[in-house]
């Protein structure tokens, strides 16, 4: 075996060697397009994610126009959308397509690929002291598979019958039968193919993240000296590796049902008086397979958000994170529990109540590690010497959203309550606060915090503050009222509520929400402007460590090249949270433990 080991070593040395010299001889194509530098790949994920975020958010503005102003028509819509908005009113078919694409794009393309793709690629090698990912090539493929998936999904927006329209959860039979909806004619096939590319992209990325964390840590960087960002991205990758393949199985069977005449999910269906030949399938089977991914997926979204918030809060409160080990173990608990609670999305599917009781128990148990984390964030903030940067504000905003949305999870986790609340606006409010807005807030926190490392410039602070306050207030104004309409039984995914006597009272509220949505959307465009403007015109970073942070990424040059550290890799001597210790503002991870330094030494 020793020959094997030395071969490895020489290979790795070779890789390191390459990295040092590569930037001298790169063309535009290898530097920016088919780059294998993890930092460039991170930016590719980020910018693709931003484009998708704008599209996804724009869709929500469009369907909110319908919900807020069901009686009005907007002639300009007909000019832009053509047959999808005859007479300036969004058609029901298009409405469903918009809702479906909004969910798909934001959950998968923005908050999974955009969030993990950006920060795992950017932060993992930099924060553990590696020159690049374990397999830079696989990493590049991961982006390009996501890109192809994106192109396919984008194509589906323009085909004659429109994109998929059965909801982001694509339940059959609606999604399986092309007679069932316009979006199920061809849009659904493109959805499945696009998602297959996306899943493979996530798997390749995830394999790389895990293997990089386990194998390429620099000297002294033990697992328990890793920043919580790295821990969270590591757990996210593991969860993705375990659950995304099941979604692939799920959609492969759906694809067969659609195109090969199988009946995995279909049985006894009559459309327009015609009995379909499908026999013996079960749509509940689909729900099991889908939610086996679907639930872990929500944690794939929120775990990186937790990691980013932890780091930003600790740096800007100038305090060690409270309960470092508890933070890690609660993430581990969340990962484990999230794999065994999927059926809480199916309480109304007629499952055996005893089975349901088990799922209730595990579901409510997730509240424990979640509460531990919230407690630790708040304790870290407590009496901190807080610097209210835009990043910090967004991180605090994340905690606020996570609490507000998490509380309603406890309502929904009880089957007895969920039978009333399932598929109402209460559910919409729950998951938008706890997942959607919270994860976006953390992503913003991460972007404001690491923008200087990504581009060597700062983003504009004033615009950052405006961005934060309007988004924070706006998000609550949008989603808080939905709890009330949800409790009153207003179902989700309906085109027009104005014909129901019982929901007429919410007409004004819906209008109000829609107006806030438009304001918040414009504010996000302002953020996008700030982002791109600052890349070229922002204030230049002049010191290597502008936030006085302890972690390794700030020991690289201001604009690190491929290989990250020009000379030797840094050696690590302590954990990443030595803030305000022994009268020192902060002690970098590369500073050896001093003779007189007080314990504990991590």
């Amino acid at each position: 075996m020793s020959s094997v080991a030395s071969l490895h070593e020489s290979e790795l040395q070779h890789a390191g060697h390459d990295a040092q010299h590569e930037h001298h001889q790169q063309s535009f194509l290898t530097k920016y397009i088919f780059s294998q530098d993890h930092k460039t790949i991170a930016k590719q994920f980020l910018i693709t994610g931003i484009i998708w975020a704008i599209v996804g958010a724009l869709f929500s503005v469009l369907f909110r126009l319908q919900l807020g102003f069901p009686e009005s028509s907007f002639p300009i819509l007909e000019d832009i959308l053509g047959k999808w908005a005859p007479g300036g009113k969004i058609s029901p078919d298009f409405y469903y397509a918009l809702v479906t694409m909004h969910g798909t794009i934001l959950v998968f393309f923005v908050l999974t690929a955009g969030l993990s793709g950006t920060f795992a690629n950017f932060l993992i090698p930099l924060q553990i002291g590696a020159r690049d990912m374990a397999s830079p090539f696989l990493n590049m493929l991961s982006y390009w598979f996501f890109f192809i998936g994106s192109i396919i999904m984008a194509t589906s927006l323009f085909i004659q019958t429109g994109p998929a329209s059965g909801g982001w959860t694509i339940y059959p039979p609606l999604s399986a039968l092309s007679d069932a909806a316009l979006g199920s004619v061809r849009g659904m096939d493109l959805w499945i193919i696009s998602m297959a590319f996306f899943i493979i992209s996530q798997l390749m990325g995830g394999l790389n993240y895990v293997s990089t964390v386990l194998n390429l840590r620099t000297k002294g960087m033990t697992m328990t000296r890793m920043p919580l960002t790295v821990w969270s991205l590591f757990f996210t990758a593991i969860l993705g590796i375990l659950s995304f393949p099941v979604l692939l199985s799920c959609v492969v069977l759906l694809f067969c049902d659609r195109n090969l005449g199988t009946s995995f999910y279909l049985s006894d269906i009559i459309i327009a008086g015609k009995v379909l030949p499908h026999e013996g399938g079960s749509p509940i089977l689909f729900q099991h397979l889908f939610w086996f991914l679907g639930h872990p997926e929500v944690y794939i979204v929120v775990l990186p958000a937790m990691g980013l918030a932890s780091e930003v809060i600790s740096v800007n409160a100038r305090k060690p994170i409270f309960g470092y080990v508890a933070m890690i173990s609660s993430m581990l608990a969340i990962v484990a529990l999230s794999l065994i609670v999927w059926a809480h999305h199916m309480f109304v599917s007629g499952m055996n109540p005893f089975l349901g009781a088990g799922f209730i128990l595990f579901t409510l148990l997730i509240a424990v590690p979640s509460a531990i984390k919230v407690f630790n964030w708040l304790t870290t903030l407590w009496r901190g010497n807080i610097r209210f940067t835009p990043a910090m504000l967004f991180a605090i905003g994340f905690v606020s959203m996570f609490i507000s949305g998490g509380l309603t999870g406890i309502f929904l986790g009880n089957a007895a309550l969920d039978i009333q609340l399932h598929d109402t606006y209460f559910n919409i409010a729950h998951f938008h606060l706890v997942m959607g807005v919270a994860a976006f807030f953390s992503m913003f926190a991460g972007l404001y915090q690491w923008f200087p490392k990504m581009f060597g410039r700062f983003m504009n602070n004033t615009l950052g503050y405006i961005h934060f306050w309007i988004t924070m207030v706006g998000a609550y104004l949008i989603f808080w009222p939905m709890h009330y309409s949800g409790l009153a039984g207003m179902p989700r995914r309906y085109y027009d509520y104005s014909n129901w006597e019982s929901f007429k009272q919410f007409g004004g509220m819906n209008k109000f929400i829609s107006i806030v949505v438009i304001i918040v959307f414009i504010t996000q465009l302002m953020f996008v402007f700030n982002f791109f403007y600052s890349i070229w015109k922002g204030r230049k970073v002049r010191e290597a460590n502008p936030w006085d942070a302890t972690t390794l990424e700030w020991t690289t040059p201001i604009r690190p090249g491929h290989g990250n550290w020009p000379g030797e890799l840094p050696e690590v001597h302590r954990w990443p949270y030595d803030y305000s210790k022994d009268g020192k503002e902060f002690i970098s991870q590369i500073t050896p433990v001093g003779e007189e330094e007080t314990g504990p030494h991590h």
Partner: protein
Amino acid sequence: MYSGAMEQKHKIHPYKFSLWLGIASILMMFAGLTSAVIVKRNQANWISYDIPQFFWWSSLAIIISSITLVLAAKAFTHRQMKQYRNLMAVTCVLGTAFLVLQSLGFYNMWQQGLTISSTSSVAFLYVLAGMHALHALGGLVALIVLYAKSYSRKQKMYSVLPIQLISLYWHFVGILWIYLLVFLIMIR
């Protein structure tokens, strides 16, 4: 230069580790599918069928191919290149035979009227064996590329890593097939 390499000497090679993770995720995919079969099996109107003999022969082919691959890897580490090439050739032929026999198995079922759209129990076989065949095809392509490389004059091959990686994957594909076959026999 690459100071991390010193420590990494004793660890598993990152590529190999990634491959293990990849295997874990492929396993999850098949776990998803096989648990779907179990759910369906417990519902009404499950129709049994006979598994064609071809699948026994294909199993034999893939088992022997694993054995020849082990021998090929051994020959490679001892730098007996001629023997290595021969054994790789046999492995590639057997791998191809596996896929051909799988296709014959499908054809045979199709001739009996057991098409993919006939009944769910049969459809599951097509999906399970079909998805497996895709994975086997990927492995076969990698095997053939590696075999072809052994004739290349341009680059000399010294690293054992590629053959180790491909062996790991190919043995996994073989074991997965045996598992699927046993599963299908028990559940059909």
